[in-house]
């Protein structure tokens, strides 16, 4: 489950953001806010995921670390987009 979330966060979320960012000027204000929220959220999540993936360099010894490292990119992208939509 967490591995599927990792794959979605790693590949699908950037694809969706790229699609959303295509011809951004023609999008609605809510979609533009979702795009920028998603970009910021996913970028921060990517940095967190990279840090957790590489340090400490030992096999997953904690379920929490594995869950956060693998799921944070999906959560960051989706959460950022949601915050962007809801923010006025």
């Amino acid at each position, binding site marked *: 489950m967490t591995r599927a979330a990792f794959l979605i*966060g790693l590949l699908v979320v950037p694809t969706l953001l790229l699609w959303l960012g295509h011809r951004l000027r023609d999008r609605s204000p809510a979609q533009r806010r979702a795009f920028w929220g998603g970009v910021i959220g996913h970028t921060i999540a990517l940095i967190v995921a990279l840090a957790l993936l590489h340090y400490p360099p*030992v096999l997953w*010894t904690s379920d929490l670390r594995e869950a956060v490292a693998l799921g944070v990119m999906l959560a960051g992208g989706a959460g950022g987009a949601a915050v962007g939509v809801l923010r006025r």
Partner: protein
Amino acid sequence: MEGPQMRERRSFPRAPGREPLKPRTRTIARWMFHGHLWLGIITTGTVLILGISGILLNHKRPLGLMPDVAHEPSGDFAAALPLATLVDAASAAAPRAAPAGVDRMDVRPRDGIVKVRFRDDVVTEVTLDVNDGSVLHVGERNDVFLEKLHSGEIFGDNWILLSDLGAVALIILVVSGYWLWLFPRSRQQ
């Protein structure tokens, strides 16, 4: 009349007074631009993981990610202890790792040592003298984790395809990047 609505979308600059591009050339230009853009964004995370783990692996010794024991042989290699005896000595030195079992043994006749690596989560490695079985070092092989992360194996056997995706993406990015850089300049000649 050329308003904002009528403006042509172009993937590369065109010099004024230049002949329009042939349809095939325009198609290649569009594919190069969009391929570079889409592939670059989609594989950013994969390429970053490959890059960071690769840099750490290149510098694993200075960073202390793997034990590096300097040792001179204490006897003739022909008089080395049997492998089973060396495993017993290593297991006694690393009692927490021993139940996971031995992953591999790395014998270095020139240094007179054997490295016994266990299959535990932190990949414990015990370095022994091959002749007298004395324990020279007990530590973690953190580079094993990084190697598996670099190859994608850390997530499962089939996940090496993710690493392959990153590598193929890098090759395509380099080719399309070169094309995007050189093609407009070749048109200016």
